[in-house]
């Protein structure tokens, strides 16, 4: 039976596989369009809903993008998928959470003499410190992860660090559960970033709320992405990162400390994931040790979608996935609970039909 199957697939010419793929893709596309038209005809949703969905997609997409950059940076330099990256984000979420908790517990007297928490007396400082803490601790986890889980395996076959990454991911999840318990916690935001309130927009006769937490997250992700891009393109560190990604041996001959650049890549990736983690907490509220798992896999999907190793690709991939996940179920007329299924369907489809990603990839000779 097995032999028969092998024989069949061997005799199937390369071209017909391609044609089958294209037909499958077209069928899928047709299905989506028919379904979407059907949904639109029933006019189940008005413009307000579409806007609401798109905006919330963009917000989550920004967070996916920040995490996806970490996958892509590490892959670009080490040709490995850092499967523990979602856990790095989780650690960042806890970092920001404890800063807010601590500041909420400190009472100070406000301008009018009333007692209020430090969190609400100095919200800007509290928010800055929450991000600083979340990003720093996530960056440090990235650093240690590289040092203890990946560096000793440098030069081993590619599957080996991958297994180590999965192990590290499970280890960090369990460590998180042991340290912080399995229960869900709630981010205590400063009042200025109260969840659910925001600017009210009148659209098609109904009100769309652009939440402050969402707008804040979206702007911050955009700033961080621009910052990262400038760092990679304009700074000496960025140039060294690109050189190491292109050719490690030659980078060493230029006087670049290759191990140090690899460490710093993990630090930067970790810091971005940490920022996404704090945003996640601020915007969504509830979280526990498991918070990094789904965003981690989704960001990985986004990175693959954009072409792993390609930084703008990861950014666009993240935004795209956020929107698809949010708008997609409405377009397809399926249950909103199925948004995760949608994301993973995309991952599988991309891996099957276009493993090099939509934007192509930053392949180098070194890629084995």
């Amino acid at each position: 039976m097995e032999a028969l199957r092998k024989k069949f697939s061997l005799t199937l010419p390369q071209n017909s596989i391609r044609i089958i793929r294209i037909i499958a893709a077209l069928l899928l596309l047709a299905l989506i369009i028919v379904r979407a038209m059907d949904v639109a005809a029933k006019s189940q949703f008005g413009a307000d809903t579409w806007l609401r969905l798109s905006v919330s997609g963009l917000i989550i997409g920004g967070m996916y993008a920040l995490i996806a950059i970490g996958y892509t940076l590490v892959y670009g330099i080490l040709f490995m998928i850092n499967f523990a990256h979602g856990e790095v984000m989780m650690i960042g979420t806890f970092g920001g959470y404890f800063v807010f908790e601590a500041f909420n517990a400190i009472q100070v007297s406000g301008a009018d003499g009333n007692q209020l928490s430090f969190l609400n007396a100095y919200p800007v400082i509290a928010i800055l410190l929450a991000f600083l803490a979340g990003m720093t601790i996530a960056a440090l986890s990235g650093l240690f992860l590289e040092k203890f889980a990946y560096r000793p395996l440098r030069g081993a076959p590619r599957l080996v660090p991958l297994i180590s990454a999965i192990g590290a991911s499970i280890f960090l999840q369990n460590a998180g559960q042991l340290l912080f318990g399995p229960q869900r916690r709630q981010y205590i935001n400063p009042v200025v970033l109260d969840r659910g309130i925001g600017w009210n927009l009148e659209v098609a006769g109904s009100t769309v709320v652009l939440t402050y937490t969402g707008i804040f997250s979206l702007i911050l992700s955009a700033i961080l992405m621009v910052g990262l891009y400038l760092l990679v393109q304009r700074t000496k560190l960025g140039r060294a990162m690109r050189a190491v990604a292109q050719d490690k041996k030659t980078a060493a001959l230029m006087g670049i400390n290759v191990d140090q650049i690899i460490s710093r890549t993990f630090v930067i990736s970790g810091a971005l994931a940490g920022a996404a983690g704090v945003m996640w907490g601020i915007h969504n509220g509830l979280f526990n040790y498991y918070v990094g798992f789904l965003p981690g896999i989704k960001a990985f999907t986004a990175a693959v979608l954009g072409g792993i190793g390609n930084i703008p690709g990861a950014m666009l991939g993240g935004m795209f996935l956020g929107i698809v996940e949010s708008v997609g179920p409405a377009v397809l007329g399926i249950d909103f609970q199925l948004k995760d299924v949608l994301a993973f369907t995309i991952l599988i489809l991309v891996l099957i039909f276009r493993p090099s990603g939509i934007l192509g990839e930053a392949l180098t000779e070194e890629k084995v």
Partner: protein
Amino acid sequence: MMLEVENLNVHYGAIHALKGVSFHLEEGEIVALIGANGAGKSTTLNTISRLNKPTAGDIRYRGVSIVETPPQDIVTKGIVQVPEGRRIFPKMTVVENLEMGAYIFSDRQRIEADIEMVFGKFPRLRERRKQLGGTLSGGEQQMLAIARGLMARPQLLLLDEPSMGLAPIIVEQIFDIISEINQQGTSILLVEQNAQMALSIADRGYVFETGKIVLEGDAGDLLEDPMVKEAYLGGG
């Protein structure tokens, strides 16, 4: 003495690539290392640059052992390698490649001045300053590789087969520039398969064969040596 290599042994797993290689280089010299494919010439340069660790033996630079020095510090000490196959960063422009060469420096003005200096030596590169390294011709890439090496202000330049795959007229140009660099005060360790060219500009030479040095002497004498003539100069 600028560089002393003593009883150098290098293994790649079970492969014994260098079996007790010893040679030296005086300040200001051009020393050629010649030999057939796989003789161990690149391995020697890579071990000096500390991309490989020797299993035995010593390398001394101006009297100090450098076998434990990490690769980036080798460059800071003034030993700069222009690797075999040029290895230009393909997705960086000519100028960015040159800036990578000056990675160990941070004085912008000095780097700008050095870029002008290497453009003076290689005017072709100035015309192509914005072009991506990967799109340059072979000869241009070799020029860029040497120029990039010069950006680190080497005192000892290790050149690995600069003539590889280039037309004779380009090879002439490149060797003229190598002589010029040497006259301006940089010592050069030159690895070549093109023994004729290498020995014509070198002071002394060493002949490698399967991980060992089998012959050494003044470049002029080696050019006349019957064994060298037979093996590397097309029968003389």
